[in-house]
């Protein structure tokens, strides 16, 4: 026979202060956990969602990112021969030459804190090659005009990027471009960028060579031979799938996330001890009550279970509270500077179902771990002694 849940529920309110303090401890830890993981999830989503596994980024060997790579026209000519390149309906090879530059643009509401934003010069072909990039407002820039399209994330984080606004770009920051379109890229890194026609961007930034070439392949089977070909003596360039390229950019972030997870883990263990302490007090204060329960026929197991349930109840309620508070941070706009490209990535904090699951798992574990020892002590109680003691 199991003790009714209402027994546990009412017990929570007997030691209001003690229960309340434990509740706050768990809630705060859950809140911190959820916010930190939302940061991590936001950053990761912005990088992992970027790119298609069928797109290869071709860079100069030795370059760590597009921003530090330059390709000469003759090198690009060699890439054209790559086997398995997809074609457009009109037969054009889907190979997009792109120039990656950067410019200081102020953050929204923080005029004095400019961020280093990535600017990409592309040909019309790029809109087809980057198949996860979709125009959501306005139109793409006309070839040959001083116009740009901006990523959704960039528009929400940086100043002066609304439709029809004008922005000064270029090596000298003195060429005015008009924002004519807004694009999305499944929340990926490209959404933090500003795209313009390649000849204009190259001219404004005084670049006569391109940074990278993106090659779209026909199917997954083409990836390996294509990479091998580009790395071979015939081309002598470096190629990797877009997805992998962006994953490497997150390496540092993963380290930070690991570090914070360790810190949270340590604090969670501390919280488990705090919960254990409260439950001990609960057991000690209720010796006679427990003895009574045993006398009227509840088994040891039922008593243990009852205490564990009570503790888990506190912890999960606290978890709900902590998570509710963390919803306030959800969707907050942030950016971070990649230490590889030295351009910023705008992202939003994301409270994912995974994080919610983690938070609940943590609080249940803390609840069970905290209650186990006190509950066992309650079960071992000698009924006669406990009843006799006044």
């Amino acid at each position, binding site marked *: 026979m199991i003790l009714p849940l209402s027994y546990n529920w009412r017990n929570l309110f007997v030691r209001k*202060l*003690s229960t309340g*303090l*434990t509740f*706050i*401890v768990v809630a*705060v*830890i859950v809140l*911190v956990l959820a916010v*930190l993981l939302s*940061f991590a999830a936001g*950053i990761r989503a912005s990088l992992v969602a970027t790119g298609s596994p069928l797109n290869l980024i071709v860079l*100069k*060997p*030795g*370059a*760590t990112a597009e*921003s*530090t*790579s*330059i390709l000469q026209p003759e090198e690009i000519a060699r890439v054209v021969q790559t086997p398995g390149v997809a074609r457009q309906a009109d037969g054009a090879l889907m190979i997009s030459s792109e120039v990656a*530059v*950067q*410019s*200081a643009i102020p953050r929204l509401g923080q005029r004095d804190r400019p961020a*280093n934003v990535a600017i990409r010069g592309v040909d019309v072909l790029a809109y087809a090659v980057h198949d996860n990039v979709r125009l959501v407002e306005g139109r793409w820039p006309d070839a040959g005009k001083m116009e740009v399209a901006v990523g959704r994330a960039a528009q929400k984080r940086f100043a002066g990027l609304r439709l029809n606004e004008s922005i000064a770009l*270029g*090596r*000298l*920051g003195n060429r005015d471009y008009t924002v004519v379109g807004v694009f999305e890229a499944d929340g990926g890194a490209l959404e933090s960028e500003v795209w313009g026609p390649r000849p204009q961007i190259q001219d404004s930034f005084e670049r006569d060579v391109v940074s990278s070439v993106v090659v779209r392949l026909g199917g997954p089977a083409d990836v390996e031979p294509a990479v091998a070909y580009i790395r071979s003596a015939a081309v002598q360039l470096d190629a990797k799938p877009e997805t992998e390229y962006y994953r*490497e950019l997150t390496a*540092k*972030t993963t*380290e*930070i996330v690991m*570090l*914070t997870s360790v*810190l949270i883990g*340590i*604090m969670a*263990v*501390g*919280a488990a*001890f*705090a919960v*254990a*302490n*409260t439950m*001990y*007090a609960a057991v*000690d204060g209720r010796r006679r009550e427990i003895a009574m329960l045993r006398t009227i026929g509840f088994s040891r197991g039922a008593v243990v279970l009852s205490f564990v349930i009570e503790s888990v109840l506190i912890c999960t309620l606290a978890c709900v509270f902590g998570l509710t508070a963390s919803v306030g941070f959800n969707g907050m706009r942030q950016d*971070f*500077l*990649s*230490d*590889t490209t*030295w351009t910023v990535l705008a992202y939003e904090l994301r409270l994912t179902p995974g994080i919610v699951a983690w938070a609940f798992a943590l609080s249940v574990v803390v609840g069970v771990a905290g209650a186990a*020892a006190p509950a066992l002590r309650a079960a071992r109680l000698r009924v006669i002694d406990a009843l006799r003691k*006044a």
Partner: protein
Amino acid sequence: MTITYVLMQNLRRNPMRTLLTCLSFALPMGVFVAAISLIVAMVKLNALNAAQLRLAVQSRIALVNALPERMRAEIEALDPDKTRIRAVCGVRWFGGRVQNTPSVIQSLGADVDTFPLVFDEIGWTDAERESWAKDRQACVVGTNVAEQYGWKAGDRITLESSVPPNLALEFHVIKIVTTEGRTNSLYLRRDYFEESRRTAGFVTPGCNLFWLKCSDLAALRALQAEVDPRFANTPNETKTMDENAFMANFAQAAGDLPGLMRAIAMVVVFIVALVAGNTMMMSFRERTRELAVFKAIGFQGGRVFRIVLAESVILALVGALLGIVPTAAALLAFPLKRLGFLPLSSLEVSPIAIGVSIAIALLVGVVAGLLPAMQAYRLNTVAALRKIA
């Protein structure tokens, strides 16, 4: 019966609770001391940098935009009688890495003549200054970098640049830098770098950054206000910052770890305070009768007050020490060098951080014990004795 004796008895009466309280204190305090150490290290590094009186001049548009070499002379001309500027050193990003390794070393080419003047805090001997001036392939390596790759003074190393034209150049390590805040970078001679670039067809020399060493703080403030207007409306508009403002741009690359640490430290203090308060109240409630007996046999209210308060403080202190010692040991045994940026990479638990942590623990102990101690002080002896616990 001394107060110490009573205290020890009290702590021993419920060893499980004492242990749990200490542990629930120790773990967050362990995190706390690390967080505080990092903040202290940041403040120290900032103070060190500020004391060097350096200004950074970069392109207004982007750091990658190289500024022409002649701008050094133009900056120097702002101070014709050489009273405010000690020296100007142009640096260019090399971004070298050891072949077939992914991580890029913070490596920069610096002007041969002024580098030892602008970065004089790294402790040059005459011999080192001479080999820097004479050996075109000389390089000065921070100790964290040197340790990571097993280099020592006198070694010949080859680094491959990660920026065009991706030169692979050979260098001679002439000096290992152990000066705090300078341990993570490598400096080479820009003339050697530029010449190699020219050979590869990159004919325009330039600098990503000019470092100005100023003679005093007033000169620094004045120059900071003068440099940018000097280059306004030229093809090379500039942005001038002091060293800390310049470095702050990069701290952000680490996902704003210092900010995160501050937040974590505050949360920890909050949690620990709650835990301690909780425990103290529990043990007081349990002991109401006992304290009443104390009072009945003649203990003054003040003394009972001290007994309760002291217990709370001792628990907090022991808990804090249990957290601080292992953290300090862990950071000594496994330094975070791999994370590659200062001050995290050379983080160790500093005496100041230990002091702050203990002070916080004391404070938390006092605050947590205050309410129960007050209750003990005001305890109505007769009522408490009458009650059957």
